[in-house]
């Protein structure tokens, strides 16, 4: 390979941006005028609300109530904003709250009407609405932590590699060559299989394959900006390399990387859900969208002659994953259009 391949998202990222105040104002105007961007933003806000208020809009199971310190007499306190239990449930919910509430233990799914739940129950009696609402928190956690981790490692390694150059640069780039040429799902499969099933190991497995694209992008930006006059100026007045990277190079390079990051969150959540779907996801019963689909696997075809009998077990989890990824992609797409001077 001669030229460094970029990730699909990186391929579309703009080469550079100008950060004058006038441009920023114009950018916001262009963002507002893009109907798809507004749709994405609204959807994302809805997801934030759904995740944040998951404790209030779901019926919390007994173990969760107990860990919140609520008794039979005070069990509705978590819906009352003046009680401390409300804020605890929203801000620092105990781990047991992430275990999906169950209505019985039947392996056959139950409709909303027959089980008295919002969206029905999936295989194992797990409440679909509960799993999806609390799963929103899991999705944000997985997406933000993995991308955050990949972003930090990538930006650090990339800027070092670009600024220092030489042997280090060569070694780092060959290493990223290797990692980028591996299918993320296969790497995640190996890592999760060896380390064991858990949401933390999934995040680690995905972050391992995600950081090199940030490193490459950052390196490219650093190489370009390194030659700018203001960097030469900073060097001339005796600033140290790390200071130059942090104060002059980073702020100018960050734009395209943020776009890639916003486009990446959706695909990270997708990979995590795919792993869960294959049965290499979170612990059984943990609120996670991929697992909701995994529960549905035996029932997606309904009963003989009635293919849509259990439609809700695969429809709702599928829809919510699609909408979540769509929201991030719409937003990332809009960011790119706004910040890309070529499309003016």
């Amino acid at each position, binding site marked *: *390979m001669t030229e460094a391949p970029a990730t*699909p998202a990186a391929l579309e990222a703009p080469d550079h941006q100008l950060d004058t105040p006038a441009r920023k104002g114009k950018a916001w105007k262009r963002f507002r005028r893009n109907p798809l961007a507004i749709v994405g933003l609204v959807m994302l806000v809805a997801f934030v609300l759904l995740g944040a208020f998951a404790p209030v809009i779901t019926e919390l199971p007994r173990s969760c109530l107990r860990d919140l310190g609520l008794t039979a007499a005070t069990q509705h306190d978590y819906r009352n904003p003046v009680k401390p239990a409300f804020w605890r449930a929203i801000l620092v919910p105990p781990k047991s709250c992430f275990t999906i509430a169950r209505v019985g233990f039947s392996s056959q799914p139950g409709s909303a009407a027959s089980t008295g739940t919002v969206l029905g129950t999936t295989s194992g009696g797990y409440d679909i609405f509960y799993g999806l609402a609390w799963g929103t928190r899991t999705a944000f956690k997985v997406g933000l932590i993995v991308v955050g981790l990949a972003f930090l490692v990538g930006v650090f390694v990339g800027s070092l590699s670009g600024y220092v150059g030489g042997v280090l640069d060569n070694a780092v780039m060959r290493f990223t060559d290797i990692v980028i040429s591996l299918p993320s799902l296969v790497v995640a499969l190996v890592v999760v299989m060896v380390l064991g099933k858990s949401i933390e190991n999934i995040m680690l497995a995905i972050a391992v394959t995600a950081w090199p694209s940030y490193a490459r992008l950052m390196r490219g930006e650093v190489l370009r900006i390194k030659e700018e006059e203001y960097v030469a100026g900073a060097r001339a007045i005796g600033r140290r390399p790390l200071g130059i990277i942090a104060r002059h190079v980073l702020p100018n390079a960050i734009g395209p990387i943020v776009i890639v990051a916003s486009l990446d969150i959706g695909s990270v959540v997708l990979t995590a859900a*795919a792993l869960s779907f*294959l049965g*290499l996801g979170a612990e059984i019963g943990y609120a996670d969208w991929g697992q909701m689909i995994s529960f549905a696997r035996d029932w997606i075809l309904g009963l003989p002659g009635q293919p849509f009998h259990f439609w809700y077990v695969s429809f709702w989890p*599928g829809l919510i*994953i699609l909408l979540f990824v769509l929201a991030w992609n719409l937003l990332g797409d809009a960011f790119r259009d706004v910040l890309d001077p070529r499309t003016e």
Partner: protein
Amino acid sequence: MLPVVFVGVTLAIVLLMQLLSPYQRAAAYVQSEQQIRNIDAIIKEFGLEDPWYQQYSRWVGQVFKGNLGYSRTSREPVLTTLKKRFPVTLELALLAIAPVLGVGISMGTAAALNRDKAVDQITRVVSIVGWSLPTFVLGIWLLVIFYGWLGWFQPGRVSTATAVSLAGTSSGFASYTGMLLIDSILNWRWNVFWDALRHMVLPVVTLAVVLSAQIMRVMRSSLLDALGRDYVRTARAKGLPERVVTHKHARRNALIPVITLSGFVLIGLINGVVITETIFNYPGLGQWAASAAVNLDYASVLGFAIFTAMMVVLANLLVDVLYGVVDPRIRYE
């Protein structure tokens, strides 16, 4: 590049495997069911408690000899399974690539040439929704509609009747490539051809939708970029017909990022077949790897990982050659 990736991947695997107990690792050396019973002897024989670098050199030596261990999932040596199942997956992947590139490039071109018109807006929405569709969700929904409800396409590779007619040597069906579509033509068995093709429709569509959406997006933005360049203005100024300008001058340059992306299409295909084959019960490499991972069948998953890494590197070499074909400015010295 190939040796570098090989060393990198195998080294990473060996280091990762050091986290496992020697008993778990012994499975990668076992060749038959009987051997599993005297696992202690195997640990000693293969020195699984030696330092990692000794284990690494020994293991790589075995891999070079074609010994990738015994697959508990398919109950045969890993290499045998790889050989048997690779054509099955390759057939799906080859069928998916044509619509991915065809639809992606033509729709991306149409969108860029009609910028901000209805075609562009529709393409944009279609591509962003298609790109956001999780493979497993699309696959499940297609299965419910086209198998569960309409009954048009079935999961699996062939129907039971066809499978029975192909079984055994007495059937007279010779396997030349392992790919059913080609083999059935060579055997002049059209009923097998149609049956196999019908079973491929849903997996191929599932694989193609997400990937063609990506190609579409890149094609659109790269063609828009090319259309704004000076050489396009020059071509127009000297009075060339618009079609020649867009298709010969602009599009050819716009294809370069798309070719870069096609390396990623292969990675997307590999990720995709693991899920698609699982959903449609299609007996290829992906289905095997997915069930092996759930069974903690290390030998199989590692064999699959090494194999896919090598495939991706080979494909990247191919992409490099393609660059030279599309753009004569990029040639190897």
